[in-house]
């Protein structure tokens, strides 16, 4: 059976089951959090923009922030029948797109996003089994819910699968 490809735009979160695929395009400092339940072959993808909702004026969108997106991913997948102990995460993005020089740390939303997601996963006991984080290249990802594979595309590198 041919699955459907669902596009997840910025600060969005979508869920589905095999054989569907979840796709998000043009990740820069944002991070694509792919949460998978390998037995039921269901999963969710969140396009996280900021590490914490305390940084924003409008906090209503939970998919936008690392500290609210991770618990929501877990909650929704459990509602779909997932066993929270089987959930695993792969994360992609968190690049440092613009650099003002070699020792520049000012534009580090990417690494703050990464730390925030890692902390949240640790807190909820979710294993992070794959990462393609950092660097200075934008990435697009395809999350295959059948296998849990995440295909990472960027403009100047070969496609890699994590």
């Amino acid at each position, binding site marked *: 059976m041919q699955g459907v490809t669902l596009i997840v735009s910025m600060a*969005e979160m979508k869920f589905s089951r095999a054989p569907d695929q979840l796709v998000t395009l043009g990740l820069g400092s944002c991070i694509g959090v792919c949460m998978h339940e390998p037995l039921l072959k269901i999963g969710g993808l969140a396009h996280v923009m*900021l590490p914490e909702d305390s940084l924003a004026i409008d906090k209503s969108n939970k998919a936008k922030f690392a500290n609210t997106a991770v618990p929501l991913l877990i909650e929704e997948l459990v509602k779909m029948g997932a066993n929270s102990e089987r959930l695993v995460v792969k994360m992609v993005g968190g690049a440092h797109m*613009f650099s003002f020089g070699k020792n520049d740390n000012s534009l580090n939303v990417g690494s703050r996003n990464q730390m925030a997601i890692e902390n949240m996963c640790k807190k909820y006991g979710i294993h992070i089994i794959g990462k393609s984080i950092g660097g200075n290249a934008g990435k697009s990802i395809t999350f295959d819910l059948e296998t849990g594979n995440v295909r990472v595309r960027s403009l100047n590198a070969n496609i890699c699968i994590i």
Partner: protein
Amino acid sequence: MFRIEDLNNFQRDVLKEIGNIGAGHAATALSQLLADKINMTVPAVSILPLDQVHNLLGGPEELLVGIYMRVFGESPGKIIFLFSYQDALTLVDKLTGSKIGFTQNLGEFEESALKEISNIMTGAYLNALVRLTGFTLIPSVPAFACDMAGAIINSALLDFGVMGDHALIIETQFSITERQIRGHFFLVPDPGALEVILNALGAGPTCKE
């Protein structure tokens, strides 16, 4: 805090006029630099949800060159220049006096040339803004990226994290008459800076249409 969604038409016009004057200065600077005629569009003031900004430029995976500068001072914000990859190459040819088509890729030298163009245009733009408002505004050194539109724009808009769900974008397009180079120029005031700018121009949040 004053929210960009609350801007009335009069206030939008004020911002558009700032964009107009600033961009006029910047276009003049570019014209002198390249010794060529430059056309510019009347600036558009748009208030866009963050996830739609890259649609202005042809989708999240479009290959773009972006040059980004922070603006420091009384009304902090960011300035972003965006060119398509091909137009960036042509612009380097124009600046260096090479035959169009000579530049094939963007190395350190080409990057530096594009940064310099942005620097000069930003200087002219901010200078106009300074004269209007009496502020002191200082741009940072430019930062360069060549990548997918989505990644460039979102990272530039989000760099310091503090951001609503909408971006206020004052956008002007430049074109070099014969060459069809189009550049997008964005001025993105920080959330708190908007009120400061409007106040300085007598169009503060309490002003009625």
